[in-house]
Each structure stands twice: as structure tokens, then as C-alpha cells.
């Protein structure tokens, strides 16, 4: 250390820089803590599947690709199934990535439903991926996904 450089200066500057970087990161972490993450969605899907694997196909998820108002987004789920006693859809679950909670709704169907076709309106807090999974009476799971861009978010704002 030379007499012209006061002790610790360089270290102090480094620490200050680290603090400046860390503070916004900590804030960001706090603000996203109330939001479901893709991990939370994966966890909710694992719980729904109960160890089974979901295959792609047979289920169709209809959502508008661009949504102006996330407070009311029309959603239609259709599953190709004859809906007979031997082969029907038992449950259809819808999951999201970025709302405060990963689950949207679970529909319970029976052979008396006639068709596996459900329409509803949901809330979306952000542009995100929506996943729908159907459980069939033979124990297989089928999934479909859709990406939605939301310009005005729901849930968080009043």
C-alpha cells in the first residue's frame, strides 16, 4: 500500500457498488414473492398428475392470443372423448404461471356430461402461459398450453 492511497478506499468503493446492485434485487424479490412462478405451476401440475406423465394432444385450449383486459379472459377447453361409461374425461384442470396462485379451476366431468367442453372466464395478472390438463377414465393425462399477452393486468391492481 502506497502512502498516496488511503487504506480501504478501493474496498469501500467495491462494497458500495455491491450494495447498489443488491438493493434493487432484494426489492424485486419481495415484490414477486406473492406471485406464482413457473416452479409453483410445475408443483401444482405434479400434484394433479400424482406421479403420472402428461402427454400432448387430445385436449384443445382456446384463449385469445392478445387480451386487452386481464380481468375477464374467455377460455374454452375441449377434449376429444366419446364420453361413454368406459371412456370419458374425469377432470380437467387449468394452471397459470404468473397469477398469485398457480391453479385457475378444476372441472369434474362424468359420462353424463355428453361432451368434454367447458367455457369460462378467467383472470390473468400478466402475459403468461396457460396449461390445461385432462385426466381420462383410463388414467392417462393429456395436456395443452397457450400463450397469452395481456395489456391490462388483473388481480394485483384495484
Amino acid at each position: 500500500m502506497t502512502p498516496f492511497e488511503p487504506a480501504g478506499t478501493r474496498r469501500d468503493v467495491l462494497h458500495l457498488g455491491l450494495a447498489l446492485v443488491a438493493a434493487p434485487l432484494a426489492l424485486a424479490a419481495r415484490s414477486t414473492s406473492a406471485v406464482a412462478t413457473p416452479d409453483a405451476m410445475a408443483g401444482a401440475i405434479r400434484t394433479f398428475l400424482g406421479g403420472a406423465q402428461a402427454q400432448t394432444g387430445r385436449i384443445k385450449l382456446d384463449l385469445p392470443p392478445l387480451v386487452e383486459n386481464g380481468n375477464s379472459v374467455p377460455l374454452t377447453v375441449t377434449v376429444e372423448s366419446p364420453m361413454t361409461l368406459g371412456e370419458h374425461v374425469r377432470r380437467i384442470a387449468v394452471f397459470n404461471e404468473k397469477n398469485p396462485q398457480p391453479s385457475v379451476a378444476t372441472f369434474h366431468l362424468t359420462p353424463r356430461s355428453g361432451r368434454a367442453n367447458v367455457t369460462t372466464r378467467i383472470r390473468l395478472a400478466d402475459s403468461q402461459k396457460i396449461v390445461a390438463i385432462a385426466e381420462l377414465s383410463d388414467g392417462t393425462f393429456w395436456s395443452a398450453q397457450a400463450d397469452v399477452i395481456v395489456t391490462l393486468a388483473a388481480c394485483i391492481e384495484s
Partner: protein
Amino acid sequence: MARTLISAPKTAKAGEVMEIKVLIAHPMETGFRPGPNGQILPRDIITRFACTYDGEEVFAADLSPAMAANPFLTFTTVATRSGTLTFSWEGDNGFAQTETADLTVSA
């Protein structure tokens, strides 16, 4: 009592797949939203809807805060015989409501 709107056919042919639409007036307060005083408003949602046809459940839905206000559902059921369709909603704070619709099925 919340206002409901139910669109179900009054008559149907046996074996026909009927489309039923139900809507109930309910704010579906998420429990994540601050109110006018900055405090988070407590959750108040409908958690379950069920439709029974002559006592047998033909469709049910578990709902979450991610459902839009005034939850609207469209589903189908097969007309088997003349009877009563019962629609029931259950929710937070002891919310419960039941509506019925009569259905005449011709052969």
C-alpha cells in the same frame, strides 16, 4: 341472494347433448388486492359449483381467485329423462345458493 342467470333448455329429446350456461353475480374478491385504505381486502370467492340432474352430479367445478368476477360457466349434459336440474354454488363466508330448472324430455 346473488342474482343468477341460467340458460338451460326447457325441453329436449332423449339422448340429446344440451349446453347449459350459468352465471352468478359475485365479486370474486381475490384476497391479493388492496382496498381504498391500502389494506388487503380479505378473500371472498365462490369455491365450488355443481350441477345435479335428478340428484346425480353431472358437472362440478372447483374455482380459485383466478376466476373472473361473476363466474360464468358453460358445460354440457345428456338429456336422459324429464327431471330437475339443480345448480348450487358454495363459497367463502358461508356463501351458498341453489337454483333449479325443470326439464321435459321427449322420446
